[in-house]
Structure formats: C-alpha cells, structure tokens
C-alpha cells in the first residue's frame, strides 16, 4: 500500500467517522428535543409566570407606536385605514353571528373540560357595530382619519386561562401623559361606552381550542386634538387583578402612544 493510498484510506475513514458521528449527534439532539416536546402540551403552555399581567396594545400598529395623521395627505393615513379594515374584518357582524355565540354579559364564559376534552370551545360575539362611530362601517371619514378625528383601537393581550377583572367589571381609560398633553388631547369618546370590556370574553383557551376567538376591543375617537402638536396619550385598563404600575414593563396593563394631527 503506497503512502498516497494510505492517505486516501485514512481520509475516507475520517469522512466516514464524521458522517457517523454527526449523524449520531443529530439523532441524539432530535431525540432529546422530542422527549422535551413530550413534556409540552399542545393546548396550554406549561408555564405562564411571565404573563401574569397582560399588556395593552393599540391599532393601527405603527413602527414606533405613533399615530400621525396628515389630514390633507391621504396617503399618510390610508395605510392605517387599510390595516384597520383588515384588522376589523373578523369582527363583522355577519361573521360573528355565523361563528360565535351570543353570551350573557357580565360573567365569564367558562367551558371546562370536566374530564372530557371540550373541543373546540366556543367564543362570544364581539360585533363590529359595538364600536359605534369607530366601526368604520359606511364611514366616509375612514375611522375619522380624513377629518382629523382618528379612532385608535385598544386591545388587551390574550393570556390563556386568565380571568381578567376578577369577576368585577373593568374598563379602559385614556389620559394625556403630562399636563400639556392632557390639554392638547381635548375630548374623546370611547366605544363600547366608558371603554368597558365585558367579562364574557374571558377566559381565553388558546389558539387551538378557542378557534374563532375574537378579543374584545375598545375604540377611542379623539375629537379635537390640538393640531400640529405631538400628544402623548396613555391608556390603561382598570381591572382588579391587573397592575398597571410595573416599573420595568411599560406595557403591563397600559399602553402609551403618540398622536399627532397635522393640519395646514
């Protein structure tokens, strides 16, 4: 056997070794991952400690949480309108009526498994019309964006098995962050009235169980924001079991965004 041949054979051995070795490692990794995934249920996550306080968010969703409307410039708000149209589509009354139940307001809509898997779980109707002037149905003002009276929708993050409000009614309130913001903010109206969120939309059972779940919304229509000024708005939920004063998580039970109406 020449030296070159020996070299080739050694290289072949090494190649084979690495094939086997990495194949084995892949198998080992896959196996451990598989075992690990067996510990995870399909329906509910194993731990929810991080989600004790649901966050709030606004729609339209923008890059830096700022809603800027140039009244005269259609394009500046048209993207918001498009997003909102899309976002509100599942709330159309027809769809809601078709898929979801009419529930009794003021109490949780619990659907326990009682030993047998209760699947899929039903969701309660949240009709788009409940959003009143902000529903955008037959609205020539495009959620008020064309007139400088924009609607901003507040939603609360979904958390599985979370009984928001602890059996008491809850609502969303909005204020200007600082005094001057409060002045510039002017008046606004909320839909549903008072920014109420009904208990019947809770608890949430997760994507897989709660197939047609539509989370409740609160729409805020700003009627006379001082134009050409940046206004810092902060909305928070008033619920017995949702703390809104977390120092580190600025979005725990609240949401802060900027509103600017540019008029010429």
């Amino acid at each position: 056997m020449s030296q070159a041949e020996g070299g080739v054979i050694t290289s072949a051995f090494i190649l084979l070794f690495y094939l086997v070795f990495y194949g084995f490692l892949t198998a080992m990794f896959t196996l451990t991952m598989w075992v690990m995934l067996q510990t995870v249920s399909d329906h509910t996550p194993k731990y929810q400690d991080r989600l004790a306080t649901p966050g709030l968010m606004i729609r339209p969703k923008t890059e830096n949480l700022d809603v800027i409307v140039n009244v005269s410039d259609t394009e500046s708000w048209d993207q918001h309108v498009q997003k909102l149209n899309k976002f509100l589509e599942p709330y159309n009354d027809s769809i809601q009526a078709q898929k979801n139940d009419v529930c009794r307001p003021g109490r949780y809509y619990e659907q326990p498994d009682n030993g047998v898997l209760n699947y899929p779980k039903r969701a309660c109707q949240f009709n788009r019309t409940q959003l009143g002037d902000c529903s955008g149905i037959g609205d020539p003002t495009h959620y008020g964006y064309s007139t400088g009276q924009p609607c901003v929708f507040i939603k609360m993050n979904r958390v599985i098995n979370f009984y928001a409000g602890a059996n008491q009614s809850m609502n969303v309130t909005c204020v200007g962050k600082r005094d001057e913001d409060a002045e510039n903010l002017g008046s606004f109206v909320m839909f549903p009235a008072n920014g109420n969120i009904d208990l019947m939309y809770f608890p949430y059972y997760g994507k897989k169980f709660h197939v047609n779940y539509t989370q409740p919304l609160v729409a805020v229509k700003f009627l006379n924001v001082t134009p050409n000024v940046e206004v810092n708005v902060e909305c928070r939920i008033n619920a017995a079991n949702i703390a809104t004063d977390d120092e580190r998580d600025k979005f725990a039970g609240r949401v802060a965004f900027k509103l600017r109406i540019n008029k010429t």
Partner: protein
Amino acid sequence: ARRGTGTEDVGKTDTGDGKEKYRGLKDKRLELKKNHQKEELKKEVDLEDHKLSIKELERKYGTNIVTGLSSTQAAELLARNGPNALTPPKETPEIVKFPQADGAILCWIAYGIQYFNDKSSSLDSVYLGCVLALVVILTGIFAYYQEAKSTNIMASFSKMIPQQALVIRDSEKKTVPAEQLVVGDIVEIKGGDKIPADIRLLSTQGCKVDNSSLTGNLTPSLRTHDNPLEAENPWNKMSTSPVGTATGMVINTGDRTIIGQIASLASGVGHEKTPIAIEIEHFVHIVAGVAVSIGILFFIIAVSMKYYVLDSIIFLIGIIVANVPEGLLATVTVTLSLTAKRMAKKNCLVKNLEAVETLGSTSIICSDKTGTLTQNRMTVAHLWFDNQIFVADTSEDHSIFDQSSGTWASLSKIITLCNRAEFRPGQESVPIMKKVVVGDASETALLKFSEVILGDVMEIRKRNRKVAEIPFNSTNKFQLSIHETDDPSDKRFLMVMKGAPERVLEKCSTIMVNGQEQPLDDSTAEAFHTAYMELGGLGERVLGFCHLYLPADKFPETYSFDVDTVNFPTSNLCFVGLLSMIDPPRSTVPDAVTKCRSAGIKVIMVTGDHPITAKAIAKSVGIISANSETVEDIAKRLNIPVEQVSKRDAKAAVVTGMELKDMSPEQLDELLTDYSEIVFARTSPQQKLIIVEGCQRQDAVVAVTGDGVNDSPALKKADIGIAMGIAGSDAAKNAADMVLLDDNFASIVTGVEEGRLIFDNLKKTIAYTLTKNIAELCPFLIYIIAGLPLPIGTITILFIDLGTDIIPSIALAYEKAESDIMNRKPRHKKKDRLVNAPLAIYSYLHIGLMQALGAFVVYFTVYAQEGFRPSALINLRVEWEKDSVNDLEDSYGQEWTQYQRKYLEWTGYTAFFVGIMIQQIADLIIRKTRRNSIFQQGLFRNKVIWVGIASQIIIALILSYGLGSVSALNFTMLRPQYWFVAVPHAILIWVYDEVRKLFIRLYPGSWWDKNMYY
C-alpha cells in the same frame, strides 16, 4: 602572567588564563558598543592602574593612602558616580493581549452610532464595552502583579546580606555599607571578606583571593605586593579573600567594575522568547484567526442578509467575544505561578514565570562543574603510601585503609603539621565537615581530613610547636615547617614538607615503606610515578609529603632557624607518601544525570577546569557513561594514533577551549550532533556562549547552569539560565531565569518534571477552555442565520469565561501526570505544539459541538415550556427585538409585551449558560486525562478539580438566584429542573471521551490515535 597557586597540582588546574578571558569579554563588548569607543579607551586606561606607582595613583584619584578620602570628598564622588552597586536589569513583563481591547472600542463606537440614530437606544453595548475594557485592564494588572511578585522574591533574595566594608576616611577606620564606596577609598580586607569593588592592592599580609566567581575556578591565587605589574593585582569586586588581610585602593565602583562590565555584557545578549511564550502566541494566532475569520464571514453573511451594518458589527463583536478565551491569560499565569511555587519548595526559585515550562522542554543542559555537579569543596580522595593506593572516604567509616603502618603515622603527622589552615573559633558543636575554615581549599581539605581521622588537630599542633615555616610560593612550589616533637625523650626537630609531588621527590633521597626508611631507588621511583599518574588520571589534585628528623647534635633545642637564609637542609629528605584530593561530585548527581538521560535530555559539561579533571568528574557522575569512550580512549586502547580512529565508534568527546577556538560553527554543529556525551573543558565565558548558540542551532531548548559572573552572558543567552543560589554571584542571578537554592543539579531534574507536567496540564486547560467557545459561538451563528431570539448574551459569555470556568481550568494544573513523563523525549520545539490540530478539532468540532447541542436543548426547553415552540422561534428575531411590538403572539395564541419577551430572552441566556456550565463539568472531568481512562487516573485524586466543580455550580447559583434581579447582568432565576436538562448531554460527553481514550489505548498508531490524541 602565570599565576602562582597555593599548592601545585598535577592536573594544572589553573594556569591563570583569567586575563585572557577578560580580553575575550572586552572584545565582545567592543563589538557590542563600537560607537562607545571613547568610553572604551577610558576603560582601557583604567585597567592600566596596576602599573602605576602608589604616588601616581594617589594623584590620579586625589586620595591619600594613610588618611583616605575626606567624608565630603566621598560624598561628592558618591553623588557623581552613583552607588557602588550593579544596576539591576530592567524587567519588562510581557502581557499577551487578546483582541478584547478592540472589542471594547468597537462597542463604544457602535453605541455612538446608535446614539446618533436614536437617543433612547439601550445601554447594552456601553455595558459590554465597559466590561470588555475592564477585562483587558484586569487581566493586564493581574499578569503584571504575578510577574512583579516573583521579581520581588528575587529582589529580597539578593538583598538578604547587606555587605559592609572597612574604609579609611578622614584618617579614621569606618565601617560603611559597600554601596557607599567611591573611587579613591582606601579599604581594608580581612580573610573571608568579599572584595567590595575593584581595588588596587597597596599592602598584603599573606593574602590570597578566590576569583572563582570571575574565572570559574576554585584555586585561590596568591597575590603579592612584590610584583605589582601582575595583571591580577587589581582585585575584583565579588571575589572573596579566604585568608590574610590586605589594604587596597578602590579604582572602580558599581557598573564600571570588571564584574559590572560583564554584567552589562550579559544584558547586551539578546534573550530569546521562552518556548511557552511562543506556544501561547501560536495559540493566540489560532484563536484570533478563527475568531476573525468566522467574524468576518458572518459579518458578510449578515450584511448580505440585509441586516443593518451596525447590527452586523455587534454580531461581529459577539462572535469575537465568544471565540476569545478571556480568562485564559489569567489562568495560564496562575497555573505557572502555582508551579513556580511548587518548584520553589523544591529549591528551584523561578524568576521568570514563563521559564517554568521552558525547563520542561529542555533538551540540552549545559552544566557547570564546580558547585553544581560537585560539592565545591576539596576532599581527600586517595592516599598512596607503602606502594599502595588507599581510598580515603571521610564521609563514611574511615578505617578502610590500614592505619597500623608506621608510614601512616608519619604521613598523618605531616598532613597535620604542615598546614596553616585553622578552624574559625566558636564552632565546637558543628560537625567537622561543616566547620568554617580559614585557609585555602586544599589546606581546608587536609585539615578536615586529619581532624576526622586523628582527632583534635589543634591539640596535636600545640604539642608539636612550630618553630619555623616557609609558606608556599609559586617559585618553590612547596611548603615547609619545622616543629618540636611531642615525644619528650626525642629532642630532635621534625621538618615536614608538602608540595608538588615531583618537586617533593626531587628533595628526597629515601622513601618510607612500612615505617622503615629505604633508599629511593629506580623501582620505588617508578612506583611513585605510576601512582602519581594514576591519581592524576582520576582528575585529582596530588600532593607529595616528606619529612626529615633534624639530627639533635647539629640542631639543638636552642637552634634558631632562619627561613630567609635557610640555615637548615632542604634535601635528602624521606619521602612518605602521596595524597590526592578532589572536589567530589554531589551524591545526588549521578542519579539525576541518569534521569535526564532517560528523559532524553543531553547533559553537556562546560567547565574552565582541566580536561582530565573534567573527564574524571564527568565519568563519575555519568555524563560520560561507564561504557563509552572518547576518540582518545579508543586510540589508547587499540594503540593506534588518534587520527586513525573512526569517529563513529566514539560516543563521548572531551573538547578543550583551545580546540573549540579553531572550530567553525559547522564543525561545532557536527560535534554536537555526532556525540551524545560531550565535555567542554578549559572554556572561557564567550566560548560557553558559542556552545549555547551551537546547541540552539540544533533546535534544542538549552538550559545553562552557572554561578560565576563569567557565566552570565551564557545564562542570558540560554533558553533558561539557571544560577546557583548559594555560590552564585548577583550578576549570574540577575541574568538567570531560575535560581537553584541548594545549588544542586538534582533540583533541575525535579524542575524538568514540573515543567513537563505543566505543559501537559496547560494543554488540558486550553482544551477545556476552547471547548465552550463553540457552544458560545453557535448561538450567534444560529441567531444570524435562523433568526432565533439570541440564545446567549455577550455579557453572559464573559461570565462563563471569567466566572465559572476560571477555577476549574486552574484546577487542571494540579492534575498528576498520566504516565512517567520523565521517560519520554523532550518535546520538539517546532513539532510538539501546545495547541495542535487534533486538540483544536477535538475541542471545537467534537466536544464543543456536543456542548452547543446540549445547551440548545436547555434553551429550547425554556422557550417551549413558556409558550414558544422551536418551530415558532425560527425567523422570529426581527419582531422579537422590536420595542414597539408589544403583542407578539406565541405558539398558543398568547400575546407578549416587549419586556416579557426580554425577560424570557434573559431566562434563555441563563438556561444556555447553565447548559454550558453543566457540560463544562463533564468537560472538566474528561480533560483530566488525555489517554488514560478517568478511572485509571482516579476521579478523586485531584481534590482541586472538585473545588473547581463546586465553584462552577456555586457561581452559577449565585448568578441565577442571587443576581437574577440585576437587569444589567441579564440573569434570571431559573427553574430548578432546567439545571438538569443538559445532564444527558454531559454524560454523553463523558462516555464519548472514554470511548475515544479506549480506542487510543487499544490501537496506538492508528488513524484514530493520530487524529484524536491531542
């Protein structure tokens, strides 16, 4: 000028080539400092001082030999010329810098750009920059501190005995610190004093000076004022004066002394980089190469994947930080200093930390003879009387030779009486062999010999009162004294004489055999010569002894002997016997030389001594093994001329300085490669340097031992210079990397063992440290390519590198050797690297990859159990990291705010961190051995490993549960069960490595062995 010797010897140990040596040194110095010719000229003039008369000297130095300098003059001169001390060589610690400094700067630049883009950008990269800068500074300070600490040991060591000098100033005798001596001072030297500066002798009383520190030889030379033109009249600083008193004028101080000049010559010799420094540099190159190439590769990938350039830079930093073992510098330093400490306990004091390992890779030791291989004290070895050679071993039972003979009675009497050496008073409790003696080496040996055998010598001398004496001088070559006898009935005087055997024999007409005087005929003379040659051939210094009872009628009790006119007979004496002395080898040396040989280390003897003496000692300690012959030996055995002997037959060679002088470098190379056992005799300091350079040309790592000032250039040139702690001069100690506190060659062997062990253990440490780099690097790569939320943060990586991993990697330094490391060849400087390809590949692509997978399992577990299944994580990065996205949906339809995600990300970091930490425990255990099974090595033998493991776990627990609330550190409290997720992978690592070692042991030399053994 031929220097007179105290007692002449056959070996002609000393021919006073000291001056020649200086000249050689001066030549070298001239070469070095050609531009300083003016200064050179001045020095030349200074050396002429011994030719000036005392008056001229007084004028030249503005002093007076009676009154001395005035204090003010002295103070002025001191201020002008500086203290009489050698300037210590400057120590510059070498700090290996990792590219962290660049990382820190990059971070701050990144933050700067970020800040300009967005004022509210997070401070993460600033933290990171600060941490990186801190790491650079701390490791730098740490290395400096370690270096300084070992230098301090040295400093304190040399300052242990402050030297004092007796000086005449303002017409008064004063004792001042030797440092304050100035040129022109008149100093008085007593026996045993160190000469504090270069002095010109003014007057002496039987004073000899031991210049061995300067010339490397033991024999003291007699200095007389009679011949002021003798070159050695100026006595040199550092020499010691064993006997007599003298007065002299200081002509040179401090760095301007001969010693100082040699010392500065030494500092002019370039010091090579230590092998370990080269290895670490090589390692840094590998790591930096990997880091930078992966970093740049992924920078390009990131940019082409449309990441922002700024983000790409941050990835680059992450990759570099992940790749650079930040803690390694500190670890290596600590490891080396631990070994240094261990070696100090075994009498090897390491000055330069890196030298610890150098000793281990040593392949040639150039050893001094005197003091290192030998005991540096003359001892009586053989006696010849009654036509017989007797072995005298004063260390053991001394009745091995026949003491009943009448000849012995006479001989012992001569030995006792014809001797001027005396014990220093006040040493009654000290064993004889350890008593301090005033007298030269030969006389000391004789005194101790007779004290051991005959008992109280002083008492015998008292009983045989000395009436006259002719001390030894270089013309006579004998010493004579006349005594009364202790026999009250015998009124004759006894004249005793000792000296160079042939000179003594000349004066004899009879010889004593079995106590009876017989005429000295040709056959007895023949016997004498045979014995003389035999003893001389053993490399021993031979003395002849004779005596004569002066007839009572001619020399009555009242006779007045006059040594100047010699009014007594000095011929027709009765020859009694021969005695030979040798500086015997240290008892531990032969064993140590054998060990060196089995460890593949060549021991070369380099000495200024005579070839015969050198060869004899070399034979007795095994440097020339019992069955090997030199060319000359073969010629003698076969009775053919030396030229006809085939050089291949000879294993050993004895080369003198004269022969060496005529050799070209090529011939020297040939000599060094052809012979395995070499002795260089009669060598001068710069020849020692040539020998060292020759060895270094063979790619050998050369250790040089030495004690004299003349050795310092070679000590400096050597890869590792080893100075003697007891006999060594300050200059030698300054030039050396290591000091043997007990002057014992055997200590070098322990040093070699420690050095080899540390090399092996550093390999393990580096393998351990490198492994996790892959586990730290993969997250970044996956993050960039697959868009997972970042599995581990840069700061977290630093907590592994500088936190949990530090103590375990130091613990590996305590690991015992796997096999007998003294039975293998020294490592080849260029072939056996500290970090070789198998080590890097095995660490990176085998264990490192396993670790990465294991850590990913922990990471995925945390995310999955919190709601993000692995599939949901892919390409989630952009949304995940957006601050404005506060309703990111997980696999279950739940929505997460930015902070909730961030916290989960930190939990991911902690999980990944714990995953690596758990697997590093397995890594630590497998790294205990490279070939043997862990169970062969013993899991619990190295307790420090367990301290390391405990420290890892405790630090991780503190980080997670104690500091989990400090947001800047990015740690969170991890659920207890996550600590165990990586355990199966850890076990897999252990099992896999055991299999690797098993195959290595089963199939040595196979492709597996070649590729898997690091």
